């Protein structure tokens, strides 16, 4: 599943493509490898996300939205 689907469907990790310049900082801190860079595209693996909010915190451009623990995603 791509991050575009994620945004629409389960809304755990949202990546704003217009801001992301695929630098990899979020990948370094994501504890579950829920974010990976393929070539020059950042992708998410939502089933691995255990919402901790770390990746969004380090993003230099504000391209990521990851809910924190306890914070509900839109779909529940």
């Amino acid at each position: 599943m791509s991050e575009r689907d994620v945004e629409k469907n389960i809304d755990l990790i949202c990546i704003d493509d217009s801001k992301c310049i695929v630098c990899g900082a979020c990948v370094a801190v994501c504890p579950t490898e829920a974010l990976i860079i393929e070539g020059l595209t950042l992708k998410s693996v939502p089933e691995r996300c255990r919402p901790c909010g770390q990746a969004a915190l380090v993003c230099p451009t504000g391209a990521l939205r990851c809910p924190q623990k306890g914070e509900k995603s839109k779909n529940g």
Partner: protein
Amino acid sequence: MMTDERFDVVVIGGGPGGTRTASGVSRLGLSTLILEKRERIGYPVRCAEAIGPAEGIARYIDVKEPFVTSVVNGLTIVSPDGKRYQKEMKGIGYIVDRELLDLHIAEAACSNGAVLRTGHQATGLIREDGKVVGVNVLELSTRRKYRVQSKITVGSDGVESLSPRWAGLKGPTRVDEIFSCAQYLVECVDLPDKYVEFHLSSTFAPGGYGWVFPKGNGSANIGVGINPELASGLTARDYLEKFMDRVCPEGDRKRFVCGGTLLSDSLPSLAVDGFIAVGEAANQNNPFTGGGILNAIMAGDMAATTICRCFEKGDFSSSGLSTYTKEWKRNEGRMNKRFYLAGKVFYSLDDRTMDKVLSALNTREGLITRKGLGSAKLIGVLLRSSPSLLGKTLMKALSARKRSRKTFSGLNT
């Protein structure tokens, strides 16, 4: 269909750490494959392009090459209260064109016989009896998957490195151990010509610093690296805009760069059976400045020497490869440990204490020399300026490390 290929050594990542390792092992006749997921070596640039000290670099690279864009003749540190501390040191380092530098090192590896495949991404390690014996690869343009078997796999996949995590050498990076960075390449600016500038202030770069690195011909890399935990909801890019307003509001912004650079202590071990980690993937950056180009090159040479010895002996076990860990620890690793501790304290100072420390540092002869920053002396000054803070910060850092190890093992079961 999955096909298998065989190489003596497969290198994941075509940055300076990986290509330098490849250069060393292929020079001695080992068949070597470099996998780089990006289409172009060195592009896009994720670097402020400063490299020093000059004497250190000269041991590895011929600095007459075209990748040097300007020579650094000194540095200026600007404290939160605006005081400027300057030190002249002719030819102390360089600002490079990072794309050309990376290409130069990669070309040297290829001319020694290494095979370079760009657009090919490592997607996992192959194991047999617990040993790493190769890599799963995805060719991005065709989506073809294949396997490469190797005696040694080198994980040099940079800040976003997953290979040392796959090998079990490290966990995720802690948020307070990464500088979140944003930078513009700026043109036609009224800025210093040959001095690099470091700006310390919680207003422009909380828990980090702002930099102005002149590239020559009226251009400069201007950026900030911040501790994301202290950013109070703002991004590195937001801080960069504030910093630009301060140092160069009129500058023509040519290129935006962002990224993370690690400030972690070196990994306790750099190898497992059949696998070795190099460069930023192995937390080998300077954990005070975040700089990692020269460290990656040095580590690449050390790794190549060890790998070649292992081939002579036919021993690819972690104990055979441990010479590399030992050599790193004896040299750069020992210094990085001190820089790690110094950085933990230095970047947690509030602005007022920072002003005091910087003025104390200024009177401390020999702190910044042609060999670089004296980590032991820096710790000495910090100890005298704020002994209680040093104790508290170290305790906090150590217990956070323990906590993050537990979290990491919990998440990966």
